[in-house]
């Protein structure tokens, strides 16, 4: 009897201790980047991608991921680990993506994610930049006789994905036009495509790049068209967890390096030969001048590795978006020097 009580008291005490340990273990934060250390220790970058969006992040039959979002993760891996292939990809639904990032399951989220105030400020995330300027559009059947969003009438049904900004933009748009509509929101993109294809809805709305990519999955892509209007701003970019500013800087400048490299005409084939260029900006990019990598604990060739192994932004865009026929015209995703809005702070 007494013995059993003793045992129970011991168990109780042990559990109190357990609680105490748990608390003290959780809080400590260091000045160095925990994420960087963990990544180096693990030997790969933990990257969250989509469940399959051609051009952005899409896996082939062999399980190799490609796309401009994937290239951001590859750039980070090249900078941090010296090998762009050392990435572990985790396909995520729109619903799972932020929780996966905040819980530490992934360290970079490169999954066509729209940068908005509430996402940036409210839920423990930080957007590091924009790798694709997109906007929401509508796809309709060519035969429908709808040629512009002004042809929409009361009672139109619109299919889209749930848990995305498109659902909100759609409401804003139809409300501003004072049109009553039937919203049908699916969890996965494949189901949206099937339902739209079967005629469940009259229009399919999502980011225009997404529309272009999903159109290829329809039974008769030629019978459909994307309306000219763009109803929202969708700056898509990589996201990291709040609170690790060193890691945040690494991801931000990995992306910036790709864009700046295109601006200065540095690409995967000529990068190493430009070490003795006359232009100091180019020399900094290929690691021949300055000590830029030291600022976030990397060696000086980090940016050279990105350009050599992944390529500059233009190469990445051409390979994944233009040559695949998704959006041959770069539109706003052209450099600022060529009429687009890609403009990154100087690497110096």
């Amino acid at each position, binding site marked *: 009897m007494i013995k*059993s009580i003793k045992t129970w008291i011991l168990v109780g005490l042990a559990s109190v201790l357990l609680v105490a340990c*748990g608390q003290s273990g959780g809080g400590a934060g260091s000045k160095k980047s925990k994420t960087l250390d963990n990544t180096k220790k693990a030997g790969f970058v933990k990257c969250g991608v989509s469940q399959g969006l051609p051009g952005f992040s899409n896996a082939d039959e062999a399980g190799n991921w490609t796309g401009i979002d994937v290239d951001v993760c590859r750039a980070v891996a090249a900078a941090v680990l010296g090998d762009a292939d050392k990435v572990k990809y985790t396909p995520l639904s729109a619903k799972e993506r932020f929780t996966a990032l905040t819980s530490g399951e992934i360290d970079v989220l490169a999954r066509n994610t729209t940068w908005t105030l509430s996402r940036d400020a*409210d839920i423990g995330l930080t957007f590091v930049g924009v790798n694709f300027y997109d906007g929401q559009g509508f796809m309709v059947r060519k035969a429908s006789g709808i040629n512009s969003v002004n042809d929409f009438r009361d*009672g139109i049904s619109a299919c889209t994905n749930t848990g995305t900004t498109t659902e*909100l933009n759609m*409401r804003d748009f139809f409300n501003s036009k004072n049109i009553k509509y039937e919203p049908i929101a699916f969890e996965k993109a494949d189901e949206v495509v*099937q*339902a739209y294809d*079967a005629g469940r809805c009259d229009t399919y709305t999502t980011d225009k790049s997404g529309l272009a990519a999903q159109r290829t999955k329809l039974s008769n892509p030629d019978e459909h068209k994307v309306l000219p209007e763009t109803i929202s701003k969708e700056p898509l970019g990589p996201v990291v967890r709040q609170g690790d500013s060193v890691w945040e800087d690494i991801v931000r400048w990995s992306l910036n390096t790709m864009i700046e490299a295109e601006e200065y005409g540095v690409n995967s084939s000529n990068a190493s030969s430009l070490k003795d260029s006359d232009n100091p900006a180019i020399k900094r990019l290929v690691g021949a001048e300055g000590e830029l990598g030291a600022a976030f604990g990397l060696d000086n060739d980090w940016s050279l590795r990105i350009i050599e192994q992944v390529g500059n932004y233009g190469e990445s865009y051409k390979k994944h978006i233009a040559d695949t026929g998704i959006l041959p015209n770069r539109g706003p995703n052209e450099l600022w020097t060529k009429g687009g809005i890609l403009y990154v702070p100087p690497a110096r």
Partner: protein
Amino acid sequence: MNFKNLKLNLSNKNKDLIPQILTVVFLILIVIYFTINAQSNMGNRGISFGFGFLSQESSFDITFSLIDYDGSHTYARAFLVGLLNTILVSAIGIFFATILGVTIGIARLSQNYLVAKSAEWYVEIFRNIPLILQIFFWYFAALRALPLTVDSINFYDISFLNVKGWYVPKFVWTNFSIFIYSIIFAFILIYFLAKYAQNQRDKFGKQIPTLYISILLIIGLPFLTFLIGGVSLSFEIPELTQLSKTVYVYRGGVSIIPELISLALALSMYTATFIAENVRAGILGVSKGQKEAAASIGLTKGQILKLVVMPQALRIIIPPTTNQYLNLTKNSSLAAAIAYPDIVLVFAGTALMQTGRAIEIISITMLTYLSLSLSISVFMNWYNKKMAIKEK
């Protein structure tokens, strides 16, 4: 002697009590540990915790809602819309699953070889295919099979079925409350009639045809209100409207969306297989002697089933069928896959995404399912008790 016994009992009680209290304390400490751990982790990652978001504007629309709702309402209201949709599809599913299940269950025991074998095949096929596949099958098969709006299947020019849904006339009532009162009144009359009939049977052995009088009452009284109560009913028939060259839509009437139809269909066809097996087990569980005894005192076949077999079979059928009702309700959460706006799609899907409040929203959703299931359990346990053998 008595005193000694009492003392012994008390200390025995203590002996049992202390480990139990300690176990409870230990469990509470574990919960506190996980709560504190989650809180500090969320704090470290800059995530706040709270339920204030429920009163914010939701700013997303929902296809199908039983109550007035649009994006200018709150997240709490969106939650309610999702909950009602979940209850709706579960109720429809349970209703049809029960009817179908009982029919198939009885059919499996049929003497007719074809009927019994078809029922068996039905059970084996639908029980062994994963539910999510059946939902996809019914949804996309229905979407592919149904015609476009402009060539809808026409039911006597009042109801139309097409890929966008099933459009039925809407009832437009005047003096609807009088109509409802007449139905309530009919039920009260039936209640007293049943009491009276039982009394007559017990005292004088007189049989009163309660069923026929009840049917007469429940149809006759509301019908009278049309004649003298000033109640009238008209129908708003859905009308085909052209939106553009090839885009048509039905306006007016009530639209039953294909997502609801296919989900209810899949849920009831799947769950019916399990209910059918329960029914079969229940009927087989009543011993043959009972039927023979009933026959020997001159009861008809119908009376044997109604008065002897079913009351005993129900005792075996109800508990496992309760489980099936619970399963059906929980399985309705697969709705999200085909865009039926149930609580998972609306609240644990869209609302979670827009607010990012994963822990809060998932806990609310789990608690909701828990209370839904418990409510069904409580009701079924009450029904089970009512049906149980009453020892006199």
